[in-house]
Structures are given as C-alpha cells and as structure tokens.
C-alpha cells in the first residue's frame, strides 16, 4: 500500500506489524514519536505487546534484555544520549546473544547538546556486537525493521536499524507498506531454544566467566557476527522474493563503470545520487557506494566493488577525535589495504549536529576527486565540509 510516512511513523508501523511480545522504551528526541505512536497502538489494542514505560534508557535496555532472556520477542527505540546511556547494556545484549531490535534514530552526542542528526551515537556503539543497518529513507527503515527481527533471531545477535534524526525521522515520504498478514507470515513466531521461562529446564544465564571460558564465548560471538553475513543476505533475498525490494550489504549507484566514487551512509546518499546524475549528464563518471550494513562490515565485498574506481572520497557524519579520520574512512581504507588495493582516497567529515549538506558541497567533493584521479595525488587526506574554520 502506498502511504505517506515519516521515518518514525514507518518504524512504528513496522513494529506494529511485527507485534513483538515486549517493548520497553524511554522517549528521547528525535525517536520519541516511535514510542508515542507505538504506545497508542498498545492503548488501542492494535498489538498484543506488553509495553514497559521504564524510567531510563539504561533500564529500557536492561528490561529488554531480561524480557528477551525470558523468551520474548523484544523491540525498542532510542537515540543519541539514550543509546549512550544504554552503552553498558548493549554489550551485554550481544554477549548474552539476545535478538533484540532497536529502531535507532541517529542524533549528535552532547556536548554541546544538540538534537539533530549525525552518526556519532551509532558509531559510538559500532563495536558493541550489534548488527547495524543504516537507512537512506523511510522505505529502507521500514523494510529493514521487518528484516531485522529475522536477522536477529537467526543470528542470535541484536540489531539496530537506524535513520538520520529529523532528516529521515521527521520527513514525510511516500512508502510502500506490506499488509499485516504478509508481515506476520514473514516474521513468523519466535521460538527460542533456551529461555528463562522454560520453567522445567532451569538454567543460569549471565554467570561470571573467567580466564578459562570468557575468551571462547567472545570468540563465538565474533563467529556469530561473521555468520550473520549469510543470514542478512538470505533474509534480504526472501524479502525481495516476497515483496520485490532488493537489499544487500550496500547499494551501488552507477558505480560499476565509475571513475570517481563517494562512499557515504544514510540520508546523504540520496543527495549524492542526484549529484551523480548531474555529473553523469556532464560526462563525469561519478558513482556512489552506500553501505547499508555497517556491522558486520563487509570489507572484502566493498573492496571488490571499489576496485576499479580511480579515486574515492569517504564521507563521515561523525568524527572519532583521534587526530586521524572518521569511522567509515578507517573501515573502508583498511578494507582496501587488506585487499591489496592502492586507490587514492580522502575523508570528509560533514553534517555534525544536523548541519545540512547540499548538492554543491557534494559536487565539490566529486570535482576534487576528478583531479585526484588524474594526478593520483591526495593534497589533503582529511577535510571538513560546510563548517566555519
């Protein structure tokens, strides 16, 4: 069905259709609407979900973890400081191998306090053991939420699906929704192998794990993340077969014959596509690679896709304050290096605190790439876009 939905409405709609057993959540701008809309679904009896209006994000994730360990299908939503407050529990959700799904609306981290979209919150959690799926628009957010529940349960890993705060979360777009019945069929019933409420088979979950076992358990977690790659592609393929929308680790836009390429996540990819088209019209072979799945990081696949490009600019909507580069840049260049590729690259940090990025700025990046492709020289490795210096 074609309907107009904001990113938040799209995520809440996916949650309604998934109809999880438990949602424990705490409101935070710009994700608040998701839990407001969902609470209304609960109040109106449109879902069977037990909703827990907890007193903090730490307790939100703690209650989600408890509920998931108990055997329930569990979802929540948060953003920014909320995700940061969950930080301790994010690692525990992954370490206990609990398939919780978060609708995470990317927002800048304090200080200074700012409510707008950038990726610093999600990037801060990139090594927490969660599968991370970025969305360019409401459609992707909706589709990925539905896929996420299956990915989580099959991989026994938690998943966060992200949108960019305000830019997507509050932007009204026409999306294709799936019927309630089809979503229900697609996500099926959750039947965990082992859970606390299996009263006749009591077990201890969350034991202290010392030098003699901890390493093996963490190794299994690392293996699960590797194994999740196939699961993500399988779920995407099943989704495509049923609903006709294709998803993978990333999206390529006019990349196959591109000479210069931008790599960026989330909403900026939409603007980049427009610029690619404009440059193509002028005869410049521009292209885009938009990673969708950032964890697990598909390093070999991405390196292969970029292997024929002559110059790449990697755009980061967050900084690492490492006196080096943004997180996407370090991942991509590491992927290129380990695949024996020497392609000239540069890194631009953009859009912190929701600072807009426009076509002109992206066009400038491409134009610089054209020069780099010719000279094979990168004058400045790390730069900033759209900031007063």
């Amino acid at each position, binding site marked *: 069905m074609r309907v107009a939905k904001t990113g938040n409405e799209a995520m809440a709609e996916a949650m309604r259709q998934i109809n999880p*057993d*438990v949602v*424990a959540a705490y409101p935070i701008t710009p994700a608040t609407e998701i839990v407001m809309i969902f609470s209304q679904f609960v109040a109106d009896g449109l879902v*069977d*979900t*037990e909703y*827990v*209006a*907890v*007193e*903090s994000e*730490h*307790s939100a994730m*703690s*209650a*989600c*973890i*408890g*509920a*998931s*360990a*108990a*055997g*329930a299908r*569990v979802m929540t939503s948060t953003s920014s400081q909320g995700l940061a407050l969950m930080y*301790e*529990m994010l690692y*525990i959700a992954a370490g*206990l191998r609990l398939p919780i799904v978060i609708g995470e609306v990317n927002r800048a981290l304090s200080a200074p306090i700012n409510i707008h979209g950038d990726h610093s919150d999600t990037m801060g959690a990139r090594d927490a053991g969660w599968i991370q799926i970025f969305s360019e628009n409401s459609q992707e957010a909706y589709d990925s939420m539905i896929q996420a529940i299956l990915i989580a349960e099959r991989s026994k890993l938690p998943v966060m699906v992200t949108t960019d705060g305000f830019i997507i979360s509050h932007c009204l777009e026409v999306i294709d929704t799936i019927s309630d019945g089809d979503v229900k069929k697609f996500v099926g019933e959750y039947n965990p192998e082992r859970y*606390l*409420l*299996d*009263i006749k088979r*009591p*077990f*201890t*979950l*969350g*034991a*202290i*794990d*010392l030098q003699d*076992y901890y390493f093996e358990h963490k190794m299994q977690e690392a293996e699960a993340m590797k194994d999740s790659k196939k699961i993500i592609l399988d779920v995407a393929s099943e989704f495509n077969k049923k609903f006709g929308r294709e998803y993978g680790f990333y999206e390529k836009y006019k990349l196959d014959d591109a000479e210069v390429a931008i790599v960026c996540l989330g909403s900026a990819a939409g603007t980049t596509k427009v610029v690619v088209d404009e440059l193509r019209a002028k005869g410049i072979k521009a292209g885009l690679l938009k990673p969708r799945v950032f964890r697990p990081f598909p390093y070999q696949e991405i390196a292969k896709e970029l292997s024929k490009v002559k110059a790449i600019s990697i755009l980061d909507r967050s900084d690492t304050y490492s006196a080096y580069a943004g997180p996407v840049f370090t991942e991509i260049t590491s992927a290129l290096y380990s695949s024996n590729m020497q392609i000239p690259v540069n890194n631009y940090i953009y859009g912190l605190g929701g600072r807009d990025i426009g076509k002109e700025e992206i066009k400038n990046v491409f134009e610089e790439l054209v020069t780099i492709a010719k000279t094979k020289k990168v004058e400045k490795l790390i730069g900033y876009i759209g900031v007063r210096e």
Partner: protein
Amino acid sequence: MASLKELSKKEELFTGGHRLCSGCGAGIIARQVMIACEKPVVVANATGCLEVASTIFPYTAWRVPWFHSAFENAAASISGIETAYNALKKKGKVKEDVNFIAFGGDGGTYDIGLQALSGAMERGHRILYICYNNEAYMNTGVQRSSATPRGANTTTAPSGKQSTGKMQMRKDLTAIMVAHNIPYVAQTTLSFQSDLMSKVQKALSINGPAFMNVMQPCRLGWIYPPEDTVRMGRLAADTCVWPIYEVTNGVYKLNYKPKEKKPITDWLKIQGRFKHLFSAGNEEVIKQLQADVDKNWEKLLSLCGEKI
C-alpha cells in the same frame, strides 16, 4: 508457614558448593528465601557477592532459572522478565504460575541501582526485590555505601587521624520504599528465620511489587568470627540498630520488640569496623550513634502504634 522440620525436607533450590565466605550471610539469606518459595520462581541477581560466588561458569548453585546482566539493574531486569511472562502467559506459551525475585546487595540497591528499583516499584510489577544488606561494597573490598552506618570503617571512608570512619548517617531505604506506596515492604535479618521466610511468602502472595531489606552480617567487612553471623543479626535487632517490621498497604507492624533494648556499645564492640570508636576522643561518635538509634526506634514505635 510450614514447620522447620517440613521445610528441611524441601529440595534446596540454592545449593551448596558456592564459593561465598565461610559464615557469609548472603548464602544463608538466599537459601532461606528459596526454601520459602512455593511456586516456580525466576531469580535475577545484581552484580555482587551472591552473583560472583554462586555462578562461576560452568557451575551454578541455582536450581531455578537465574539471570544476571549488570550491577545497577536487577530491578529493571526482573521487570523485563515479569513483563515477558505476562506476554507469554497471555499467548499460552507459559502455563505455570511463576514468582519473580531479584537479589541485590546494598551497593546495587541503595546506590547505583536505586533509580531502576524506584522505577520498577512505581510501575507495579509483580516482583519481590530483596536487598541483602551488608552495609558496604563487600564484593570489591569493603567500600562505603549509603547503607554504611555512621562511624564504620570502610576502605573508602576509613578511620584515621582526621576521621572516625563514615561521617554520615545511613539512608533509610525501607522508608523510601514505603514512600512508593507499594503493597508490601519489610525489614528483617537472616537471624529471624521464620520471620524472614514468612515475609517472603507474604511478599510473593501479593499481586504487586514487594521489597525486603534484609540485614546481612558480613564477617569479612564487619570483622567478627564467621560463626557469629546469626548472633550478629539477633544483636542488631536487640540493640534496635535494625528493627524487624513490615508495612502492609501502608500499615506498619513491629514484628519483634526486644524485652530489653541493649546499648549500642554491645553492637559496636564486637565488630572490628567500629574498633576505632573506642579510642579516647571518639566518645561523641558513640553517643551520636546511640542517639540516632533511639530516635529511629521511637519513630518506628510510634508508626507501629506501639508504646514508647
């Protein structure tokens, strides 16, 4: 409640083989609580002595579903578990009637976990939260908590040339829980076995949140011989340092009134943590402690409608 003889025949749900200290009160409390359970129970534990010593992977002392995730969130964890139960029961995926108990030490309850506890109590989950209160962070080596009494020597509020140990009065968490207007709040110690167990049964029979503050003498942090643990709890009640009472739907009831209220010095002199208070020049602290106890006791007697 069943007789002690009958209870002794029940299967132990918290078993031996754990690695708590000899004379540890936490193990005694866990065992008594579990014996008191009549329905299937799921236990959530905050990080702390009881957790680290009873579940060293791949071993466990628990014969019930048991869960731990972090230090400050036992109340939030058990909220999630109880909510999952409600969801799965509604769907017919769980058939049994189940009770839910969270254990936290005073660090995980009075301090770092207070917010999660307050939230869970306010939301009205059908849970019993038990604080095994040994009056300091014992698991990490006797650091002060807001449950530590004035004058006690701890490793982060030590006594010294310029200090008589903890300078502040402890927080009255039981009163804070009463202020949540939950159906059942109780205070006891491990030394009053039948009181403790009947309170657990009462708490679990209530359709709502319940909180128990159980004083747990700690031979390591309090510094006394391990065989004296149960005696210590009794002395806490007899000196009125730790009154035994309950508040059911807002109504206070004193469960134990010592025939003769013993002086605070009886309590202080047998514990290494208070040893410095008996040095010359610290008499005022002991006087203050007695005054604190007297004031609290009189207030409680009045709340319980007892004669002062």
